[in-house]
């Protein structure tokens, strides 16, 4: 299909624009790809082209052009995607996705960020993870497309570590902490059952994942499904992304804490993540320097205490990808990003819980 659809009139089937209002149309077999985009003319062509290279092919590729002021819509349309455009900017990725959800007529839907390109076989990888009927969502392996600046290098190590070490173990125990929103597949009926992507948090992907668990559904991780997002290349963009991620995590804790107790294993994953993000990080920032000054300078070696625990998973995964030298060269950047992470996690907890200042504005992180 090659068309542009603007927000429908009041009499149209899509008039209300909310997922709860989709009629009881039967869902067809296949996958619809939803790509929310706002001023993405530099990257949208790569994203759409990478989707079109996939086998099996998507039934439809829908680009939600969220009132871009650049040529995003025109480029996507020229490549053969269906471009839909709301009457006004939706303000967040969740609302843009919900607008797109009203156009989905297939059993499965796949969301991809407009700055994310897929490796060949990525959709097939996610589909294989959806083979069990109780599985509602799956996500894949993420690697930064560019690894040039200090921020991209730090993120590269974070991803290698998390997707080689944490995620496969979480998946073995059937509880990946999150189906990452930049590239994930969902059962449309289950997303509709939850009313689409919630706008109560700025971490809409984590919120949806935890809601699916609370519904008794499964979420999986498919390491063979690889995607390459453009990561923040400077501090300004990194600040926006980390602010959103940290607040998203805190807001999800706030929304889900009562029901999380009843989701086996996920509660322990979240508890350890919470401990490491707060208490352990505080000890890292304050306790180590205090001990180094008052007891012995040797305590400063504590900053390198978990270095083997970081380097080994990263190097083993990098070896599989023939990127060992690149990975080793990026380790120092990881330490820089780690200290920046401290600040944003603390700031999020402080603002959300102590000051009571909720982050509501959705700012793009790239």
């Amino acid at each position, binding site marked *: 299909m090659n068309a542009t659809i603007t927000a429908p009139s009041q009499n149209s089937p899509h008039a209300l624009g909310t997922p709860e209002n989709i009629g009881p149309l039967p869902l067809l077999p296949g996958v619809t790809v939803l790509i929310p985009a706002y001023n993405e003319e530099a990257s949208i062509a790569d994203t759409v082209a990478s989707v079109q290279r996939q086998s099996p092919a998507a039934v439809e590729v829908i680009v939600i052009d969220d009132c871009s002021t650049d040529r995003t819509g025109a480029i996507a349309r020229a490549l053969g995607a269906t471009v839909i455009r709301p009457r006004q900017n939706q303000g967040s990725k969740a609302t843009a996705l919900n607008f797109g959800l009203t156009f989905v007529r297939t059993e499965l839907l796949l969301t991809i960020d407009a700055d994310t390109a897929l490796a060949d076989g990525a959709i097939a990888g996610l589909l294989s993870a959806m083979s069990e009927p109780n599985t509602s969502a799956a996500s894949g392996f993420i690697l930064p497309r560019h690894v040039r600046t200090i921020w991209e290098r730090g993120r590269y190590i974070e991803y290698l570590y998390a997707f080689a070490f944490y995620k496969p173990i979480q998946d073995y125990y059937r509880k990946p902490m*999150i189906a990452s929103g930049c590239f994930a597949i969902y059962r449309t009926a289950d997303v509709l059952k939850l009313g689409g992507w919630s706008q109560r948090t700025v971490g809409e992907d984590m919120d949806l994942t935890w809601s699916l668990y609370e519904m008794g559904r499964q979420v999986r991780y498919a390491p063979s499904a690889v995607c390459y997002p453009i990561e923040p290349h400077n501090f300004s963009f990194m600040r926006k992304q980390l602010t959103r991620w940290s607040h998203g995590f805190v807001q999800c804790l706030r929304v889900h804490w009562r029901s999380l107790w009843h989701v086996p294993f996920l509660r322990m994953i979240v*508890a350890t993540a919470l401990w490491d993000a707060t208490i352990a990080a505080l000890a*890292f920032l304050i306790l180590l320097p205090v001990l180094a000054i008052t007891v012995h300078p040797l305590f400063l070696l504590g900053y390198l205490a978990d270095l083997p625990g970081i380097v080994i998973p990263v190097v083993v995964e990098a070896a599989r990808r023939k990127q060992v030298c690149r990975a080793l060269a990026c380790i120092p950047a990881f330490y820089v990003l780690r200290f920046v992470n401290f600040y944003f996690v603390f700031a999020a907890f402080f603002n959300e819980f102590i000051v009571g200042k909720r982050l509501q504005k959705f700012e793009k992180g790239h």
Partner: protein
Amino acid sequence: MIAGLPITGIGGIFYLLLAIAMPFIEFYRLLRGRSSVAAWRTIGFQLLIQTGVLLSLSFQAALIVWLAPGPAKQAAAKSNQMLGMAGVDGVSQSHTAGLVAAGTIIAIMTLAAVALSVYALRLYFTLAGTHRAVA
């Protein structure tokens, strides 16, 4: 999305213990006819990682003992006494093992405390919910 990786803290030991448990769980599944080649592949890869982590942690501890023998030996002696590994003179023959053990024990004790807190809170909220429902 991951909310950054400020520190591995107890997360590192938590996932290490989970990885160590995986072959036993998979063996149980194998006996029940529910195992798969893909699962064993994941387990093999994780065990390779965990072996590497444990070896490199030991190497790191040995390096610390070599670089700063005095304070490292004191710390090792204390942890060895805690572990009941002390020799006649109160110091184990292996300072390196003592340092690795000390770090591991602290992390496991913290993890256990967090796990207990999670289960205690869960019990509390379950009971509170039941109490509210009865009332």
